[in-house]
């Protein structure tokens, strides 16, 4: 436990709150980097996922690609792109965007797919146009699973951003690698603890968001009439 004491001492050391290596700055970098990556990935994955989910076309391809991408080790992709584009922040951005796409894509299209077909059929039968079906039915009902996809993508990006410090001077991972180089275990451990806390905090935030975006009426709130329909509750997991 002595090791943890020194790690906490490192985290609390005022010397680590000034200059280019300041902890708040590193945390900010880590978050901004992750956020930008997620925005890029979402801009690609969400429209594509909605298209797949609404039309049902290209699903097989999406499943295969997502599964295949999961098998690709992040470090390999990261180092390969870094060799191509050179050391710097471009490689992590490219590699992590690629990695964040599959979970968001899956969240988007499974969100649409999990909706009771009869609900969509009925919406069409009463005269909703395809665009209205997407906007008024599929979007709100598919939101919980999309947020679920964003949640796993975020966790993955936060974790991999740590690894990104291997090829770029970026974020909290820097402490791990510079500590490794100088054999300063307090720094490594302190940095690791910070990353873990950051990841857990985001996990908690997402858990809260996910609870709020489940459309009312789908969540099966207790205390009211008995729940008789089971078909449409799939979206609530």
């Amino acid at each position, binding site marked *: 436990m002595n090791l943890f004491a020194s790690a906490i001492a490192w985290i609390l050391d005022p010397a680590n709150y000034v200059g280019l290596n300041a902890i708040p700055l590193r945390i900010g970098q880590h978050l901004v980097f992750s956020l930008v990556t997620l925005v890029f990935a979402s801009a690609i994955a969400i429209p594509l996922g909605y298209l797949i989910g609404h039309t049902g076309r290209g699903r097989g391809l999406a499943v295969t690609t997502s599964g295949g991408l999961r098998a690709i080790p992040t470090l390999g992709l990261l180092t390969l792109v870094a060799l191509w584009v050179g050391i710097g922040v471009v490689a992590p951005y490219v590699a992590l965007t690629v990695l964040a796409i599959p979970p968001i894509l899956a969240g988007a299209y499974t969100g649409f797919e999990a909706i009771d077909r*009869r609900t969509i059929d*009925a919406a069409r039968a*009463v*005269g909703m*146009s395809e665009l*209205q079906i997407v906007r008024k039915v599929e979007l709100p009902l598919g939101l919980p699973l999309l947020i679920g996809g964003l949640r796993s993508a975020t966790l993955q990006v936060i974790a991999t951003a740590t690894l990104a410090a291997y090829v770029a001077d970026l974020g909290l991972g820097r402490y791990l690698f510079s500590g490794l180089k100088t054999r300063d275990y307090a720094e490594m451990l302190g940095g690791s603890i910070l990353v873990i806390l950051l990841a857990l905090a985001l996990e908690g935030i997402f858990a809260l968001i996910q609870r709020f975006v489940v459309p009312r*009426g*789908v969540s099966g709130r207790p205390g009211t009439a008995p729940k008789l329909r089971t078909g449409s509750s799939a979206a609530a997991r």
Partner: protein
Amino acid sequence: MIEFRSVSKRFPDGTLAVQDFSLVLPSHKTTVLVGSSGSGKTTLLRMINRMVDPTSGSVEIDGEDIASLPPVKLRRGIGYVMQNSGLLPHRTVLDNVATVPLLRGTPKRQARADALAMLDTVGLDRALADRYPSQLSGGQQQRVGVARGLAVNPNILLMDEPFGAVDPIVRAELQQELVRLQKELDKTVVFVTHDIEEAFLLGDQIVILREGGRIAQVGSPADLLARPADDFVASFVGADRGRRVLHVERHGDGNVVVDSDGRLAGVLNGEPVAGTSAGSSAGSTPGAEGDR
């Protein structure tokens, strides 16, 4: 008036769901399409609001070929009620009923007021207006489904086994409610079911379908019972079996009606009269119901 003109439908997987189907569905009457699964009854129903387009032939509403009408606009003018209600789970009862009027551009305040009134029409307590579908019983959901189908005051109401998923007691209640509504509203109703009892109860015109959407017989309930076209129809309506073949027996001072198995079906009030309504009235006696 709805008219099918030699309509056929082959699905992309090769199944021939409907084959050369022609029929006139008179206005302000209830036409019931009856058949077992695979008879194409739902496909036929869905052709009326262009949820399914025929492979050949045409469907006309009041003389106009609906293939020339934009499907979305057409559907907004036709009421549709399906099994499992098909309500939007994330919208309240009131918003569900108001869905189509809002799609058609009715002002929100008006649409909600109309929807509230519609709840009365289908016999739902206004207190349920703010509930979500999952908070209602199956029967209540089905009533909301009917209210939604009626919300734009359509001339045509399509009902696809709307009472198929509720228990028998609630089903009987909803059927009576529909009979009452139809007396009040006088719509052109097209009703799909596999339950011949339901067909006899609700239908002015009954269409018995064989596999592949071929018509076995069209007629009033009494026609079908009294003059079944063939053995298929006879067996479908139950005219060949005990409980629809009734005779009168003398019992003490009165007459009782007994089926061919010797079970009591009801009491005969007065003397038998000439006519063809005996079949349909026997169909709704408690004895016949209890057999289900």
